């Protein structure tokens, strides 16, 4: 039983490690995933701040749009300070 658990934990660890390595190679999906995770925090804040003026879906959409705008601004800052990367 314990051996099976250890083996399972090792598999999970390996999967996470592989996923992380793959994420490092493929940066776009990783950034999208991070954006969606952040949206889980931002969307309820938008919903609460607007006092129910927007539906939950609209709150998620607005929060995602705000995060996309911030991400675009960050990207443009990178272009400005490290233009040779592009």
């Amino acid at each position, binding site marked *: 039983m314990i051996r099976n658990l250890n083996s399972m934990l090792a598999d999970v660890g390996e999967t996470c490690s592989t996923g992380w390595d793959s994420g490092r190679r493929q940066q*776009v999906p990783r950034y999208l995933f991070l954006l969606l995770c952040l949206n889980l925090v931002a969307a309820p804040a938008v919903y609460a701040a607007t006092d129910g003026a927007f539906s939950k*879906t*609209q709150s998620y*959409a607005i929060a995602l749009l705000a995060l996309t705008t911030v991400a675009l601004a960050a990207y*443009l800052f990178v272009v*400005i300070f490290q*233009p*040779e990367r592009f």
Partner: protein
Amino acid sequence: MTSNPSDLRQPRGSRNQRRHTPKANMSGIYRRAIRDAFVKLNPRVAIRNPVMFVVWIGTIVTALVTLDPNLFGTAQGENPRLFNGLITIILFFTVVFANFAEAVAEGRGKAQADSLRATKSDTVARKVLPDGTIQEVSSTTLRQGDTVKVIAGDLIPADGEVIQGVASVDEAAITGESAPVLKQPGTDIASSVTGGTRIISDELTLRVTSDPGKGFIDRMIALVEGAERSKTPNEIALTVLLAVLTLVFLIVIATLPPIATYVQAPVSIAALIALLVALIPTTIGGLLSAIGIAGMDRVAQFNVVATSGRAVEACGDVSTLILDKTGTITLGNRLADEFIPVNGHSLQEVAQVSLAASVFDETPEGKSIVRLAQQLGATVDFDRASAEGIEFSARTRMSGTDLPNDREVRKGAVDAIRGFVRSRSGAITPDLDQAYEKVSRLGGTPLAVCDGGDLYGVIYLKDIIKPGIRERFDQLRRMGVRTIMLTGDNRITASVIASEAGVDDFIAEATPEDKIDVIRAEQSKGKLVAMTGDGTNDAPALAQANVGVAMNSGTQAAKEAANMVDLDSDPTKLIDLVTIGKQLLITRGALTTFSIANDIAKYFAIIPTIFAAAGIGALNIMRLSTPQSAILSALIYNALIIPALIPLALRGVQFRPLTANQLLRRNIFIYGIGGVIAPFVAVKLIDIIISAVGLA
């Protein structure tokens, strides 16, 4: 410069014949460009262009509000889905048009790369083994240092140096020039061969100088295909400027909704994105890389391979040109025009000794001396088989013949012959200096001729200045480019040629080492220097110069040190390259001015109409019918101006030899004021059409 058989140094092709790139199939360029325009929508590719990447993200957001107009709040206006859908389509095509511009510019290079790749077929090479036997191997197995034998009809299997044999080689595969080139060992100019070219007569033994995949054609493919293309310093600076403008407008648009709500004029997300796209400099953002690629392509059309866009751009910033006299300023074929007897000798005697001294000289100069001497009745009065030709060298600065009866006849630089005569206990007469000065003042090259210690006379080698060169130097001067002529001739000849050709400065009796000193001196004054070269001894100067153009007929060392290689081996092209570089910079500046000036009209088209409720409707000076129509008109203009300017971006703005200040005034007038007026007219026209069709 090296001393070599001059018949191989002739610039091939006149000014009118220069544009002959290797034959490339151009028929499918546009089809391929359309396909590539969609391939470039891949975010990994799109992210390299910050302005168009923002438009691409905007397109995705407007597509979402097309699917669900209430996604970010309750939609306003009539039929928001149609309006959002139209914006999405226009934005999508804005990105596609920008990608198309880049793809078209890249297309020509790719077509050229394909045609070059076709010449790189795997061939069977005759490898010479250490024991002298020949083994047939695949050309891909050849390594640097291997020896191979090629015979008439063979494709040369790899880049190499001729170590034995004399043969004609057809280099059309790389130069497009069908005239065969003579290859022979022992000379800088004619001993290097390129893999993929074809030997058409006789046979050669070659030493391979490159490993597989690292040959000249491999490098050319990588260059014309743009595989090694990286942004030039000017492009980087402009990218930063565009990113700053985009960021500023992104912040402005992102902070606009609360203000809009406060002034009771709420704006939809699609309208905000439309406003953002209209305000950011999409025109230059979409055309920037196309302008750079087209600049490299224009260089390639002149049969010059540039190692990078940086080199082409540096041409535009060049402030000093260092030019060799022979072949660049003068035609290069100096021909004997007159014999001037000295020391009491007769004309007939001078002709006789000149003939004897030149009988083994195979250069055009030597042959012209023989011709002139024979016209004057001179004949070869010795057994050629028992005579020995003495070749010209940079050290001795003379050539001649050792005759069977221990006579030494020589011709060469007057100083060198003077020393030779003195070393043979001869006397120098004052009339030598008079003849020397007479020839020099005519702009010719004086060659003294002697028989041992007996001085006979001076040969007048006539140098002809290339037609139109003075006008071209005048043009360069107007552009602020200083020209310096380098020549091995004496000061008097150099000053005469310099004044006739109109160069700004000259260096007489120059050695190859003088080039690097001149370059360093100019660079220490903050100048950018361009020069040409072909010999191994030119390599350090080519590497030191900001723009070094090596002749294709030159040595491998020269080609590797230079940042451009002229496939036609025509040194005059340096002047054309400076023009192309300046044209590239002017085009980029003009379109940037135009793009930013456009924003003013787009601002006046969109802002007053969408904020009319806030009381700024009076600013709607174009009297656009509705806010939707205003937005669509501005966006349609914004999208269409990109393909409309593709021909200008690819061809370049018409070049005029003006100073930087004159160019700036001219660009501001044409592209600045024009960039303000044109969109006012175009947006109004599109608005009328949209209203008539009933789209908004």
